[in-house]
């Protein structure tokens, strides 16, 4: 089948959205950005196509009558989590292999410490923790292997480390050195160990393995995974767009993409706020999603998404956990500096002053939103309707603070937030790709 792809290569995450010929969203994929843009791009695309497969699966299922809708939904959920588990194991394996290659270069700095043995045990522990991580209904700290692995490894390393005998930094050094290289490896996940295995497991989980309709289901699912997908056109955007393997005509500024993407998600949108990893954008669009004015933060990235990332890292929390924790604040502190790199110092400083973690977090969130408010004001204020996009739009506290400040400064406004808000830029890019495709076809038509 023909499809149109939009890729948003951001400074922290890379997103891909796939549209079918009617502009309907077929799939979305995301991965953490890395120094190798092509890999990041490929992984995001791969994730999106996997996602396409699952939606093809659920589209295909109804063909078999025997399952009611709930059962079908469960089956897809099981299918997906088993596939993720298979993926996770493959990534762990890749990490293990990388560690074996790298460990010598670290060990030589700690000749008397049993680094190798302990790292092996840590990896075993992570292996053991894999299955429960993907059990039904477990919330994961992050969707990215790097984050999951990092926190598991850190926990295990802290347990094992002891001064002199087994230095903590020796264990961490091994991880730091290996994780990125292992991330950039081609994942060896043949169908039989990946999708094929996931199909079997999900059938088992649904208690259908031996059932008469099992073969039918197998057939349907395997077909869905086998469908041929052809990319008719793709457009790239985002910070790294200049480095994407695309030609100039296939590249659009993220401002335009976010404007169009937000318009597609909420047709009434007139103002868009996007808080990305290292820049915050305030965009005004007209009734067609065409940008009429915009403002971006100046050359210092203070108060951008990355800021919250550093804070999560500093407090050893998952990005997802920040918002909820800050919600528990009783008396938020006022934070004036939003310099990302100093955030850590400020937190430690305030913790030693005896201030509560959640109160500090609330203050930090407020600081981020305040900077966004000034950009919004610069770009011409907030008009009805107002759409909030980017990773930070998932953060409950950020959203709550934003609601409050908008209400107090601009009065009643509809605040749109899509669960897929992080894909806004990629969606806009995909729409540009679709347009280009349509245009091309018209021209062909005209030529003929």
């Amino acid at each position, binding site marked *: 089948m023909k499809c149109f792809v939009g890729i948003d290569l951001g400074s922290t995450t890379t997103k891909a959205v796939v549209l079918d010929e009617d502009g309907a969203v077929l799939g979305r994929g995301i991965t953490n950005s890395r120094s190798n843009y092509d890999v990041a791009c490929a992984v995001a695309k791969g994730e999106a196509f996997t996602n396409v497969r699952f939606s093809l699966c659920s589209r295909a299922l109804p063909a078999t009558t025997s399952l009611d809708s709930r059962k079908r939904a469960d089956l897809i959920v099981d299918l997906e989590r088993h596939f993720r588990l298979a993926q996770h194991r493959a990534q762990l394996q890749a990490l293990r292999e990388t560690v074996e290659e790298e460990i010598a270069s670290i060990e030589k700095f700690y000749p008397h410490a049993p680094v190798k043995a302990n790292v092996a045990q840590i990896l075993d522990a992570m292996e053991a923790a894999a299955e429960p991580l993907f059990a039904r209904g477990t919330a994961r700290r992050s969707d990215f292997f790097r984050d999951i692995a990092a926190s598991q490894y850190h926990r295990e390393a802290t347990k094992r480390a002891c001064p002199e005998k087994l230095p903590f930094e020796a264990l961490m050094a091994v991880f730091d050195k290996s994780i990125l290289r292992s991330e950039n490896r081609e994942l060896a996940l043949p169908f039989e160990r990946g999708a094929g295995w996931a199909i079997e497991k999900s059938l088992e989980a649904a208690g259908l393995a031996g059932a008469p309709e099992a073969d039918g289901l197998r057939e349907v699912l395997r077909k869905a995974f086998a469908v041929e997908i052809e990319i008719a056109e793709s457009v790239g955007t985002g910070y790294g767009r200049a480095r994407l393997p695309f030609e100039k005509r296939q590249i659009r500024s993220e401002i335009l993409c976010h404007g169009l993407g937000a318009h597609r998600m909420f047709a009434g949108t007139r103002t868009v706020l996007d808080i990305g990893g290292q820049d915050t954008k305030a965009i005004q669009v007209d009734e067609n999603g065409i940008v009429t004015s915009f403002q971006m933060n100046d050359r210092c990235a203070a108060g951008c998404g990355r800021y919250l990332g550093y804070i999560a890292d500093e407090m050893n929390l998952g990005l997802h956990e920040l918002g909820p924790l800050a919600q528990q604040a009783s008396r938020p502190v006022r934070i004036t*500096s939003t310099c990302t790199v100093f955030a850590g110092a400020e937190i430690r400083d305030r913790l030693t002053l005896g201030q509560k973690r959640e109160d500090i977090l609330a203050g930090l969130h407020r600081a981020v939103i305040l900077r966004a408010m*000034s950009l919004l*004001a610069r770009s011409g204020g907030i008009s009805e309707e107002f759409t909030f996009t980017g990773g930070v739009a998932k953060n409950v506290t950020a959203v709550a603070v934003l609601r409050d400040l908008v209400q107090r400064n601009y009065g009643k406004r509809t605040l749109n937030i899509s669960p897929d808000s992080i894909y806004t830029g990629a969606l806009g890019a995909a729409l540009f790709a679709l347009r280009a495709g349509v245009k091309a076809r018209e021209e062909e038509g005209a030529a003929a």
Partner: protein
Amino acid sequence: MDAPVVGESLESIVARAEDLTRDVRLDAVRAWKGEHPGKKAIGYLPVYVPREIIHAAGMLPVGIMGGGDQVEIVKGDAYFQSYLCHLPRSTIELGLDGSLDVLDGMIFPSTCDVIRNLSGMWQMLFPEKYVRYFDVPQDFDDRVGGEFYERELRSLIDDLAGLGGGEKVTDEALRRSIALFNENRAHVRAIYAARVKTPWLVPTSEVYLLLRAGNVLPVEEHNSLLGQYLEAARASARRPMDLARVALRGTFCEQPPIDLVRTLERAGCCIVDDDWVLAARWPKDDVAVDGDPVKSLVSAFLHRSPECPSVYLAEGKKGEALVASVKACGAEGVIFAAPSFCDPALLDQPMTQAAAKAAGIPTSAFLYSENTGQFQSIREQAGTFADSIKLS
């Protein structure tokens, strides 16, 4: 001898001063207007503003020095790039959120490019208000700069009379006002003298609050507050402490947050000389009350203004004045605390610092802004500076 009878307790006086310092929304001014129906209040920014004239016009001069660390900047940053100082953004914030509505006009003296341009922004944002950019001469010759300044003062007098609610300033009224502000400056000088002699009796942070209180108080009230304070402070049982005596420079416009001043004291620095709230402290001594009062103000400005980065130094070298006052107050070192992005203060610094160095006076420098909330590195620096003075 018997201890003097103290009217109010020291604590309550200082507490009142702190409330007035934190009164960025000008409740005190609203109260004053309530008690004086039909009277007008005129705001002014640092530095050189002839408060006597506003007072003589029957109006309340109100010192506007930004929002300190209390005002949350929501709209203000929309008007200023990150590389500009903080005072104008909090001032705009206060203007936009209505806190300054109680003022009938604003005077922007020629202190720097930012405050100068702020006057134009005010014209655009608040067209219904009286906005005056008050140019002060950089030529200090009575016949040249003096004549220009006199024309400026007289046109200000006409403006105020034109505002309604104001009276056309008579020489008599102006002389009365000058006398009152002479008294005010005398009180301030007395407090600083006491600080030099017995620093532990009049802590820096208290004096700072007392001065700031004058921004929103009628001069008559401020005079009595200052009088009461010094009396109460002298009578207090505070014991001497081993602190490093330092002079502070760079705070002539954007004011340091009170917690910064306290941080310096905690870090072991006793500030015996400074350049904050300068609008309330020039000219350095009494303005003549005889003769033409406008001309007296002119010559007071031309010849008796304290040195500050926003006035041109016609002759002599930069920093001579600093060295002189350091010697006068027996400071052991100088701390240059300039607001971030303050061109006048920061461009002056190398010159004044060199002068101090040449005179063998140790110096230390750091940046702040009116809403600085993190004092860790400032504490480290001030502490090290105090240590090094004390360990010498």
